[in-house]
């Protein structure tokens, strides 16, 4: 490429940047961090000589933030209220409302509590009869934490160091223990080791349990050193009085004698692949050692670990990467929880910068959410065009965030959206609703037969999911035309059938129907012998089954 052309392209792209800065958000209302995100991402576009997709309109953007922040689509009222709002800062104000208004607190906490329950104990964690984990206890802890916007570092510290009972309602209840309740008992706390380092520090050590891993910097020694922090901890079964029935579990710390039965020198043994045995003591990933004593009065190993983790820059990077991936569809690394020199990030400086900013702002996740949702990449449409064709991570490219990456809603988002779409809202007490959702989720979760409780969800766009949306109870409820149902109520609003049809499209896919869609509706109307409610029902069914509905876009 000639120099002249290069300069021309540079000039063009800086115009684009200017355009964007004048977009929906008045510059003075935007937190400084947003500008820094924009700078870093836009620099990437210039480097690759690509032009970003256009910004989405308000309706699509509204759907997007409701799904990402609250875990469901907006209701018709919420959508219309937003579209009727005037003013340059309307997007910023909506984010603020969703994050800080009391009426959304419960939903916000519920959504993030669910996300974190799945991260910490998996979708099937605590559902097995033999499990010591209380799923309710885990969720309660997380819900409460998100409801009060507990600083993230504090939450991590609590999860890693917690002691107490798993089950809500027991005298010593501490829901945070459920993260480790099953993981410490199993086979030398191997799972506690790998989960803690992967989830909170983005360091994948599970392969190094048995051998030095060729692809990352972790060595087998490090695995067992990290593992040593968990060896004072056990889950104890507590029985129903006078019976052998397990009531709940209690996570306790106790003196650790070490594998050589010397609490003053509490070592663990591990075996090299060549059969030689080595010893390990608690040493943090950055090389910091703590005492070798296994007596709690000398050192509480998990508390020490918690403090060391609080100092680690990986704590910051991991949560930023996770949150970025939640909102933008992809993280700076793939997979998101594997950070390290062997797996370079797409925007390493931005990842580090946001990590430091979050630390400076006391790990306030709502601030991080604000920065990300108001940033330029989050405003972009999901359209792939010739100007950014190379930004296609499904082709193995590093993401450049020059468009919004399409992704399917999570099973939980879809469930909650369908519940929203019934208009009736959820039925029953909180616990009953949880139970209903859990039953529904079961059909998509399959466990692998390992002690680590690995699992996968088959909620991935495949046939069982399509069957559920075609014929399932949720769809039946959502498309009901009984008195009081969403469609029944909708049919009594608006000025005309056309108006009501528009509302239907707004709720489902955040846009107006196209001309051919209106045509089809007209035909359906006559096929249903001019019964408008039945026509709306057919269209609603088609919309709920469409990719446009089940995708975040």
């Amino acid at each position: 490429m000639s120099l002249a052309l290069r300069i021309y392209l540079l000039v063009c792209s800086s115009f684009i940047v200017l355009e964007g800065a004048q977009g929906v958000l008045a510059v003075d209302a935007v937190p400084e961090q947003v500008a820094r995100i924009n700078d870093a991402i836009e620099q990437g576009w210039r480097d690759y000589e690509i032009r970003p997709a256009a910004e989405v309109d308000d309706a699509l953007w509204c759907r997007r933030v409701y799904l990402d922040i609250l875990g469901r689509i907006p209701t018709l009222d919420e959508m219309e209220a937003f579209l009727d709002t005037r003013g340059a800062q309307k997007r910023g104000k909506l984010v603020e409302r969703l994050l800080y208004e009391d009426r959304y607190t419960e939903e916000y906490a519920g959504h993030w509590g669910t996300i974190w329950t799945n991260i910490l104990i998996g979708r099937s964690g605590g559902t097995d009869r033999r499990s010591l984990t209380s799923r309710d206890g885990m969720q309660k802890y997380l819900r409460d934490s998100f409801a009060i916007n507990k600083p993230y570092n504090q939450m991590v510290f609590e999860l890693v160091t917690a002691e107490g009972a798993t089950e809500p309602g027991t005298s010593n209840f501490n829901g945070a223990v459920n993260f480790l309740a099953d993981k410490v008992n199993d086979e030398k706390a191997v799972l506690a080791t790998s989960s803690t380092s992967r989830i909170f520090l983005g360091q994948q050590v599970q392969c190094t349990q048995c051998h030095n891993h060729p692809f990352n910097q972790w060595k087998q020694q490090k695995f067992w050193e990290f593992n040593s922090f968990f060896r004072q901890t056990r889950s104890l079964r507590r029985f129903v009085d006078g019976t052998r029935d397990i009531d709940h579990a209690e996570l306790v710390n106790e003196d650790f004698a070490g594998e050589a039965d010397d609490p003053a020198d509490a070592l663990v043994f591990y075996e090299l692949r060549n059969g030689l045995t080595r010893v390990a003591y608690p040493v943090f990933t950055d090389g910091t050692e703590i005492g070798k004593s296994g007596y709690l009065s000398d050192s509480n190993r998990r508390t020490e670990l918690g403090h060391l983790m609080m100092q680690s820059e990986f704590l910051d990077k991991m949560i930023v990467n996770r949150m970025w991936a939640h909102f933008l569809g992809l993280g700076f690394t793939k997979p998101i929880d594997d950070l390290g020199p062997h797996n370079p990030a797409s925007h390493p400086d931005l990842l580090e910068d946001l990590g430091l900013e979050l630390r400076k702002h006391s790990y306030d996740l709502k601030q991080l959410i604000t920065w990300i949702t108001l940033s330029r990449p989050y405003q972009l449409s999901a359209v792939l065009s010739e100007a950014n064709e190379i930004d296609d991570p499904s082709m193995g490219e590093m993401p450049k965030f020059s468009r919004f990456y399409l992704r399917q809603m999570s099973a939980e988002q879809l469930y909650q959206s369908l519940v929203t779409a019934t208009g009736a809202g959820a039925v029953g007490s909180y616990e009953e609703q949880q139970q209903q959702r859990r039953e529904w989720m079961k059909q998509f979760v399959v466990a692998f037969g390992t002690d680590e409780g690995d699992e996968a969800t088959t909620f991935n766009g495949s046939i069982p999911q399509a069957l559920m949306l075609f014929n399932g109870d949720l769809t039946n409820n959502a498309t009901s035309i009984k008195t009081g149902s969403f469609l029944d109520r909708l049919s009594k609003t608006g000025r005309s059938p056309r108006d009501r049809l528009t509302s239907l499209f707004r709720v489902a896919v955040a846009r107006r129907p196209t001309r051919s869609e209106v045509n089809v509706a007209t035909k359906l109307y006559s096929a249903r012998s001019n019964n408008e409610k039945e026509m709306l029902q057919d269209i609603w069914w088609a919309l709920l089954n469409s990719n446009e509905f089940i995708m975040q876009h």
Partner: protein
Amino acid sequence: MNRFWQTPSGMTRRHFMSHLAGSSAAYAASLSMGSSIYAHAEELKKKRRSAIMLWMGGGPATIDLWDLKPGAPTGGPFQPISTTGGMQICEHLPLMAQQMKHMSVVRSMSTREADHNRGRYYMHTGFVPNPNIEHPSYGAVISHELTSQRPELQIPPFVSIGGASTGPGFLGMAWAPFSVTSNGRIRNLEMNLDDSRLLQRMAALNLIEQGFTSRTRDLPAAEHAKVLRKTFDLMTSDQMKAFKVDEEPDEVKERYGTGGFGQGCLLARRLVEAGVPFIEVDLGGWDNHAGIHATLRDNKLPILDKAMSALIEDLDQRGLLQDTVVIWMGEFGRTPNINAQAGRDHFARAWSCVVGGADIKGGLAVGETSRDGSAVETEPFSSEDLMTTVIKGLGISTETTFTSKNGRPMKIAGGGKIIRELVG
């Protein structure tokens, strides 16, 4: 376009489908099934190839099953018994011993992935995990290659029973495993809508889909349309009765074992009979870090022995084994060394897989491990090699190449080498 808004009376659902197919190009491909195809069905049936994978989640101790080390300190308590093949296996697999003339044991598997997730991926795909690309699994690859042999198939070509399998990778959602429980019951299969109205709804849906796909230009949207089509087919197909494993006589169910794995194997046989090219049946619980031998003797081995032997026997008696490859494996083996909890830990360096059927020779033990089972002493075989051998055994060209999404050509089964003792 207008004509399918009216509902012709007295037509079967299948007819409606072809009716719709005439009106909507997107549905035409799957729905226009000419009668000439049925005429050739018998002929096609003759070369119907299938594969069944028995997946042992958790990593089975193959040293206690297929490659015993009696007398060695690592040998454990189990004794070898003779089989109808040229090898000995564990005394707690007496029914399988009767079937080993059909199956061969590859005793010189040597791999490098001893983590469950990585091992599962590697053994299912023939590729080590790579964050930039998702490789297709056995089920996706084989059903992709064999489905053209049976245009009459209306049910999913890749069925995963009682487990999760591994996804279709870059081949796309149309080749995803269709996961069912071992009782073959499928949720939400029943339509609660009359035919004509469903068709009208489908047309509206189709229109919305096409609009979205053309606006975003993204691949997943187009994939979704294929899945919808398949779902639609399946709801209306008579072939779905293959899933009704409950209809089998009680004595047959007993012979396979009435637990999930037994019924899953029985269901697998029914699906092969119905022409499904790939079925995976899951038996988890092999991650035996503690108390391994009691678990194997009292629980895992009896379940495996009954179900796997009944499956092979039935396939053989029905003349299906000559066209069906059966593969038995997990993500890795377990250490020869018995640990302090009387268990065995993860071990990928020297272990066994079992394979037979179609063009793969049975009755052989291929490769050898050292006296204590800690190392392979003959030519080592990898996941790629095993998969390539299975591909060859099914009559699929081992030169087949796929193109990944990023345009990279990918040799089928990672370009492994054929285990010559087993095929050709």
